[in-house]
C-alpha cells in the first residue's frame, strides 16, 4: 500500500508539470492579452507594463521562470488584472470560501443522497421508493444555475429569510443557499447510485445467508450490505468533490461569495494568465489527491482490491 501511494504521488509530479505546460501554451495561443482594452495602451505604456510582468521575455524563459517560481518558492506570481495582488493572495482569500461551500455541499449531498438511496432500496417499489426516486430525478434536472435563482427568489425576495448573497466571513445565513444550490444535483446522483447498488447487494447470496441466520434487517444492512454497496458511490465521490469545488464557479459568482470560482472565470476572460494558471494547478492537484484518496479507500473497503 505504501509503495502504491508513493508511486502515485511520484506520477503526480510529471502530470502536474504537463498540465502546467499545456495550459501555459493554450493560454498564450488564445488571441488577446491581459492588457488589451477598448482604449489600446500607447506603446511606451505597454512596454513598461510588459517589462514589469516579464512578458517581454521569450516564451520559453517565461515558462521556465514560472515553473521555477512555483516549485522553489511556491510563488504563483502577481495577478495581471488585479494590480497589487498576487495569485497567492487571491487563492488564500478565495479558496477557504470555496472549500467551505464545497465541504458542506459534500456533507449534505452525501448524507441526504445515501439516506435517500438506502431508504428507497430497502422499501423497493413502495411509496417511499417512488418518492425518493422522484426527488432524485427532480433534483438531477435542476443544475445549480437553475437552483440558485429559484432559491434567491423564494428565500430572499418572497420570504425574506436569507440574505441574497455575500459571505460576511462565512456566517451560516450566507452559507445555506450556496450549499443547497450546489449540492442538489450531486445528492440526486448519489441517491440513484446508492439505490441501485444497494439493490444489487441485497440480492446477493451472502446477504441471503445473513438473513437466513436470522439477523435483524438493520444489522444486515449496516454490517454486511453497507460496505459493498458503497463501492460505486465511493468512486463517484472523488470526482464529485472536485466537481463541487470547481462547480462553485457559478455559485461563487451568483451569490458573490468572493470564492475562487469568480476569479477563475474572470481570469479566463481577462487573460489574467497567472491567476488562471494558479487556479488550474490548484484544481489539478486536488483532482489527483482525491482520486488517490478514493483508490486508497477502495482498498480499505474491498478486501479483494490490493495494490
Amino acid at each position: 500500500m505504501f509503495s502504491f501511494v508513493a508511486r502515485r504521488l511520484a506520477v503526480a509530479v510529471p502530470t502536474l508539470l504537463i498540465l502546467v505546460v499545456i495550459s501555459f501554451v493554450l493560454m498564450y495561443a488564445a488571441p488577446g492579452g491581459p492588457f488589451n482594452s477598448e482604449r489600446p495602451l500607447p506603446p511606451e505604456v505597454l512596454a513598461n507594463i510588459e517589462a514589469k510582468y516579464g512578458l517581454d521575455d521569450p516564451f520559453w524563459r517565461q515558462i521556465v521562470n514560472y515553473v521555477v517560481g512555483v516549485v522553489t518558492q511556491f510563488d504563483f506570481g502577481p495577478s495581471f488584472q488585479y494590480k497589487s495582488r498576487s495569485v497567492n493572495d487571491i487563492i488564500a482569500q478565495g479558496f477557504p470560501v470555496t472549500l467551505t461551500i464545497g465541504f458542506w455541499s459534500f456533507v449534505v449531498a452525501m448524507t441526504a443522497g445515501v439516506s435517500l438511496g438506502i431508504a428507497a432500496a430497502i422499501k423497493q417499489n413502495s411509496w417511499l421508493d417512488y418518492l425518493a426516486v422522484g426527488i432524485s430525478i427532480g433534483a438531477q434536472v435542476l443544475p445549480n444555475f437553475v437552483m440558485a435563482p429559484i432559491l434567491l427568489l423564494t428565500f430572499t425576495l418572497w420570504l425574506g429569510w436569507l440574505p441574497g448573497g455575500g459571505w460576511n466571513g462565512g456566517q451560516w445565513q450566507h452559507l445555506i443557499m450556496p450549499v443547497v444550490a450546489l449540492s442538489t444535483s450531486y445528492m440526486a446522483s448519489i441517491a440513484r447510485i446508492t439505490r441501485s447498488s444497494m439493490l444489487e447487494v441485497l440480492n446477493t447470496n451472502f446477504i441471503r445467508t445473513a438473513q437466513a441466520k436470522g439477523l435483524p434487517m438493520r444489522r444486515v444492512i449496516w454490517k454486511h450490505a453497507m460496505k459493498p454497496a458503497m463501492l460505486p458511490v465511493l468512486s463517484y465521490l472523488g470526482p464529485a468533490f472536485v466537481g463541487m469545488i470547481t462547480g462553485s464557479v457559478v455559485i461563487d459568482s451568483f451569490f458573490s461569495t468572493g470564492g475562487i470560482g469568480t476569479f477563475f472565470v474572470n481570469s479566463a476572460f481577462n487573460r489574467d494568465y497567472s491567476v488562471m494558471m494558479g487556479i488550474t494547478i490548484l484544481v489539478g492537484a486536488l483532482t489527483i489527491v482525491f482520486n488517490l484518496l478514493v483508490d486508497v479507500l477502495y482498498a480499505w473497503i474491498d478486501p479483494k482490491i490490493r495494490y
Partner: protein
Amino acid sequence: MYYQLLEGAQVLLKNSDHLKDSYNWERYMTLKTALKTSTAALLLMGGTQAFADAHATHPTTGETLASDQTFIYRDLDESPSIDPGVAEDSAGGDILRDLFEGLMNQAPDGSLIPGVATGFTVSDDNLVYTFTLRDNAKWSNGDTVTAGDFEYAWKRAASPELASPYSWYIELMSLENASAVIAGEMGTDTLGVSALDDTTLEVRLTQPLPYFAQMVTHFTTFPVPQSAIEAHGDDWTKPGNMVSNGAYMLTEHVPQEKLVRERNVNYWDNDNTIIDKTVSLIINDENVALTRYLAGELDRTDVPAGQYPSLSEQYPAETMSVPLSCSYYYTVNMTDTTNPALLDANVRKALSLAVDRDIIVNNVLAGGQAAAYTFTHWATAGFETPDIPMASMTQAERNEMAKSLMADAGYGSDNPLSLDLIYNTSESHKSIAVAISQMWKQTLGVTTGLDNQEWQTFLETRGNQDYQIARAGWCADYNEASTFLDLMQSDSGYNDAQYTNAEVDALLAEAKTSNNPQANYDRVEELVAIDTPIIPIYHYAAVKMLDDDVMGWPRENFQQNWYSKDLYKVAGE
C-alpha cells in the same frame, strides 16, 4: 474605455427570463419596505451609529434624515485596482472619489468646485496653472495634505517603475515631458509639476488645454500618501494600511465580495458630510442585483436591458435614466483589408442612412438612450449638436436616399452586397446587430454575416483591422467634445476605421488652442457624416434603480461622477 469592464465582462448566468416575467411586482414592493430594516441589519455587521443622531435634519433643506446613513450599491465586478495611480475603471473611480480628494471636485451638476485646491490661476499663454491648496486638508492619519503630495502622486503615476496602465492620462493632460518620462527617456523630476511650497502647486503644459481644470477631478491626479506607500509597498491599498485624504476611509475590502468605506473624521469638510458609510457589493449578474434591490438589500442598482419600461411603470420614483457620456457606434474598416465596397463613401453613407435609430433606442434598448447622428454625445458640455442633414430627415427619406446612393455605387438586386459585422459577445449588442442587419436587408438588400467574438478576441480582431464593420463604444475622459472627436484624427491610436482626412486633422489641431472651438467641431461632425468612417447609433444613458430615500444624486452630472459626501438619506414617512 471606462466601460470596458461592463462591455467585456461576460455575465456568467443567464437568469431565467420566465422567472423574471412572473414577478409580482406589487407584492415585492410592500415586502421590500417591510424587509428593509431587518435585511439591512442582517447585512451590515457592526454598523455605525456615529453622527447619525447629530444630523436629525438636513442643514440646508430641513428634511428629516434617516437614522441609518448607510448607502449600499451594486458594482458589476471587482475593480482592477484602488490605487489612484494605477486604477483604470469607472467603478474604481467611484470608490476613489470617496477615499481621496483631488485638486478640484465636480459639483452635482458637473461644474467645477474647489477640492483640496481653493482655486487656481492661469498664465497668459494658458500654459502654466498655479493651484492654491487649502491649509486644513488632512490625511486620515492627521497629517496635512501638501502640494508635495500631488507632485509625488503625479510623478509616480507617470513613472515606468509603477507601469500604470493609466499613465497615458498624464500624457493626455499634456504635462511637460510626460511622454518622455513615461517612455523612461527622462527622469520623473523633469515632469511639468512642482510644489513651490506646501500650499502652491505649479503645473506646466506643452499646449494650452481649455478644459485642463476639468481634468484634475480625475482619480489619476489624486494625491497619494508617500509614507504609507513606502512602508507597505503594494499592500498599501489594503484596509488598515491605506491612508487617504477623502471624506471616507477604507475599512473593509474583500475582493469579489464587497468594499466598505466609512467616514474620515480628519476630512476638512467632515461636518457637512451626512452619509456615514458606503458599501459596494460585487454582483456579477444584473438580474440577481435587481432581485436583491427589490428585497431591500441595495439602495442602487442597474436596470437590466429592456426592463426600463416595465420598471419605470412599477416604480416611477425609483427608476432613473439620465444622459451618460458615452457613444455607441459601428466603425467601418477603411483599409485594404476590408470589403472593397466599403471603400466607397456612398456605400458607407447608405449603410448609415438605412439604420433606423428610433427603433434601436425605442424598441431594442428602451432605456431613455438618444438616437445618434453625431459622434459627440448631445449632452457634452459646451457642445451644440450641429445640424447634420440626416438628422432632420424622416426615416422614409433616409431610406430613399440610401437606396439611390447604393444604386449609384453599383449595388442592387442584380449585384447584391454581402458584409460581415463583428461585435463582442453580449445580448444587447446582439439584439442591435440583428435589428440593423434586418434594416440593411430590407432597405438595401445587403446581406450581413453576424459574428460575435469573446471580448479579448474581438479587441484583437478590430485593432488589427481584420474586420469589415465592428461594434464600438467610447466614453468621455473629460466633459468636452474633443474627447470624442480626437478619435477621428488620422494618427489616433483608437481610430479603428483608419480614417484619414487632412481637413479633420487641421480643424481638430486648431480647436485645441481655440477659445471657441464649436465651429471646428461642427465642421468635423459634418465631414464625418459625409465620409462615414463610423456609423453613430445611440448616445448612452445611465439607467438605474435608486431608492427613493436617497437624496442628492447628481443626475445632472454628465459623467455620472458621484461622491458619497453629497448624498444623504431621508427618513421614511
